[in-house]
């Protein structure tokens, strides 16, 4: 925590990581998309539409992962009152919301051929929708007050409260018998998916992860600069 505890340190670290992360993003997306679209077989049941999976599943994972990142940052912000942690949550939220929206949209598009409808009200789909709303609430709360610190603290509390939704998403398929299929990759007893599908899936997951790192760092720097600017402005105002 304290190694990143000041913006100068963070910027140095970020500048070191950034180029590698950008290169990795391009490579992983290239390889992942190749395998996903061309290099893997169509499913014997689902046919070509299985390819939606390579976009959908990692997006759903990232939606949850980013939420946890945001919640951890929020906890740090509240416990140690550290401004950088506050900004980390703020920087992560729109990215997580985007991933969640992507999972929702691709899921819905996938649902039409698979289930015959874009949307059903099952536990998994619903809890993901709730997660999306939590992201929206978090961002709305940030925007609701002029005093950024106050707004950020309030939003952090909401992020922590919303953490209870994560296990609900994860286990909803087990708790309610529904249309959405249960976990086949992230299982205690190992994945039950065919290897030919696992490779592109993991490549895409890794690509999403480094992409997140890139955007997250970029947004962090942006937020830090913003804060610096507004502080400088208020000093100039001469209080």
């Amino acid at each position: 925590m304290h190694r990143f505890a000041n913006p100068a340190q963070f910027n140095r670290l970020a500048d070191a990581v950034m180029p590698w992360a950008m290169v990795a993003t391009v490579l992983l997306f290239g390889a992942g998309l190749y395998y996903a679209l061309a290099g893997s077989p169509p499913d014997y049941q689902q046919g070509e539409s299985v390819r939606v999976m390579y976009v959908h599943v990692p997006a759903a994972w990232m939606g949850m992962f980013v939420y946890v990142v945001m919640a951890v940052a929020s906890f740090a912000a509240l416990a140690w009152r550290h401004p950088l942690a506050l900004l980390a949550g703020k920087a992560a939220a729109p990215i997580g919301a985007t991933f969640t929206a992507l999972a929702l949209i691709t899921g819905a598009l996938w649902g039409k051929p698979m289930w015959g409808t874009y949307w059903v009200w099952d536990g998994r789909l619903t809890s993901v929708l709730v997660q999306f709303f939590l992201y929206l609430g978090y961002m709305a709360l940030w925007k609701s007050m002029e005093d950024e610190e106050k707004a950020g603290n309030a939003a952090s509390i909401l992020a922590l409260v919303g953490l209870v939704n994560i296990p609900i998403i994860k286990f909803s398929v087990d708790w309610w018998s529904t249309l959405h299929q249960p976990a086949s990759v992230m299982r205690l007893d190992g994945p039950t998916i065919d290897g030919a599908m696992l490779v592109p899936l993991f490549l895409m997951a890794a690509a999403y992860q480094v992409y997140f790192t890139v955007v997250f760092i970029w947004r962090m720097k942006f937020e830090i600069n913003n804060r610096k600017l507004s502080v400088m402005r208020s000093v100039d105002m001469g209080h």
Partner: protein
Amino acid sequence: MIDANLIFDSETRLTGSALGCRRGGRRVFDGLDFEVQAGDFLSLVGKNGSGKSTFLRMIAGFVPKVAGEVIYNQGGKTAAALASEDITLVGHQNGLKPGMSLRNNATFYYRLMTGGVPAPERLQIAADIFALGSLLDEPVQYFSSGQRHRSALMRFPFVARQIWLMDEPTVGLDADNRAALAALIQHHMACGGIVIAATHDPMWVQGNVLNMDQFQPAHGTETDDEGWL
């Protein structure tokens, strides 16, 4: 006046050193030292925006400090205990429920602070200090601004607490009531109470003066540890 034989602990002493405070992302004051002890009156003066209200709210524990320390009785009491046992604060808002009568407002305040029910005579005496006796059963919503402010000030004598924090207590008071306020403060000091008042008007009470203008942060201090946020 109200508790005939009330004498507060004469050992009480509140000391702050090198206090700094931030609000709305900006340092309000810095390097502030002060000390008050039983029987003291401290008046806070300074330009608009110099941090008088912020200082009072910091002592009450509402606004966190970002530097320095406040010590109460050589550390014999925590800030939380200080706030919930010894402090009465009346600021710009008056904390009155408009639909309720002054009597109900005051009674609820008493129960909230002590858990007990106030004797009717106690209520009458406290109200009479600011000439509110005849208004006790009126709904607060019909009060003029000065009457409302007096109703808020009534909390000081009504519940026995040692440290009174007053934010611009003279605002909107007519001459008679300003005199009553001065007498009330003097009486509290005589009982060993402590009064800290932020004000732009003369208070007609002898005491120390803390000029907040001295503690304005120098330009550029914002760039230190937490200044970037």
